[in-house]
């Protein structure tokens, strides 16, 4: 068993492309899941239970079934009714999955904002919606940041699962390179290292954001 990392170097431009795709997907999913999660959380908390039960059902469903099963359902299943490209399915699937997790966090943090804040704001003349947007949600958002960061770090790792439905991200492109060079060990080690570096960067970023948020909380 001798290791030969020269194919990895030859295919490094491909891997770079994969890193770019992974980061881009990560960014889109992060924005989508945070904004979507916030909206879902506000709707579930401030509408009647008889109205928002489908929303609560989907949060529950996304949280109790594995991501891969959801992706298979969306990709192979939805293809029967409408034809959507794999990349859209992947981003939407991952986005909805983490939207549910983020909504769960936002629900908890919105509830944790003291009800005195709401009452004080209303008695100062803010309307219901203005109170939500200017008083409650900002406070809840700052409280949610540590857990949001954790979720996003887990999410970036889960992007690798998208290769199962044929999205050309890091793992998928390396599988292509492996099928040409027959060097799985070297490539997967490289990918593990790349993911580890991304993870370290994200953890550093998370610590920085948390420090900044702590000032403004």
């Amino acid at each position: 068993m001798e290791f030969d990392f020269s194919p990895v170097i030859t295919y490094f431009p491909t891997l770079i492309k994969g890193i770019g795709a992974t980061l881009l997907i990560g960014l889109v999913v992060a924005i989508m899941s945070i904004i979507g999660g916030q909206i879902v959380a506000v709707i579930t908390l401030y509408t009647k239970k008889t109205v928002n039960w489908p929303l609560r059902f989907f949060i529950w469903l996304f949280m109790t079934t594995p991501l891969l099963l959801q992706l298979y359902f969306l990709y192979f299943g939805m293809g029967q009714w409408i034809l959507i490209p794999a990349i859209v399915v992947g981003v939407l699937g991952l986005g909805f999955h983490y939207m549910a997790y983020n909504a769960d966090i936002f629900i908890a943090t919105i509830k944790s904002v003291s009800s005195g804040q709401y009452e004080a704001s209303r008695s100062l003349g803010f309307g219901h919606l203005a109170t939500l947007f200017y008083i409650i949600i900002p406070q809840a958002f700052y409280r949610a940041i540590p857990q949001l960061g954790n979720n996003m770090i887990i999410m970036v790792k889960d992007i690798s699962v998208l290769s199962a439905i044929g999205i050309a991200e890091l793992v998928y492109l390396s599988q292509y390179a492996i099928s040409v060079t027959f060097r799985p060990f070297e490539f997967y080690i490289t990918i593990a290292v790349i993911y580890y570096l991304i993870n370290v960067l994200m953890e550093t970023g998370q610590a920085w954001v948390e420090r900044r948020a702590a000032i403004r909380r």
Partner: protein
Amino acid sequence: MDINLMIDITPLLVKAAWVTIDISARALFFGFFIASALVAMRTSRIPPVRWLARAYISVVRGTPYFVQLLLVFYGGPAIGLRLDPFTCGVVVGAFNIGAYMSEAIRGAIESVDSGQHEASRSLGFGRFATLQHIVLPQAAGLMIRSIGVLAIILVKNSSLVSIISVVELTYQAQRLIGSTYKPLEVFSVSALMYIVIIYAVMGIVEFLYRRATRYTYL
């Protein structure tokens, strides 16, 4: 919704669900020992042993489970490690969850007030006796809860083993979607099975938690 089809595919999916349970339970079992070893290493008096455990935990938590699985299954033969898919799933699952679980166990142990440890030592208990009779009983409740969360993650992660062709729930569901062209029905039944498994885990965890905290008053 085709109810007859749903009834027809249920036996197949139940069989596959057992594989999911089997693989997760084994990974949890072995993962617990790996986690205990890691906790012991992290509290070791020899610095390199501590660094090794910390590096291991950091690397495992910093890379995707999916990549770890692919690395061991497809890359393993290059370093003389040939595992059949099921064993590979159990081994990678155990080593993966072990790293997370060691953090959970350490967190639970550290949550016990250090005065308890000091009082016990000054009353003449040894290090191990202190851990066994004083610290662990108090840490057990928190430990069981956090291990329960990890067990649920483990069940959901076991779906990734379908990539290395273990016939478990997700693999079977994908195959059935391909052969019946009825995605909604297959998804409903297989999702229901995951939900049943997860709620069963939650029930067991709650039972153990109540047993473990019988005598603790908080």
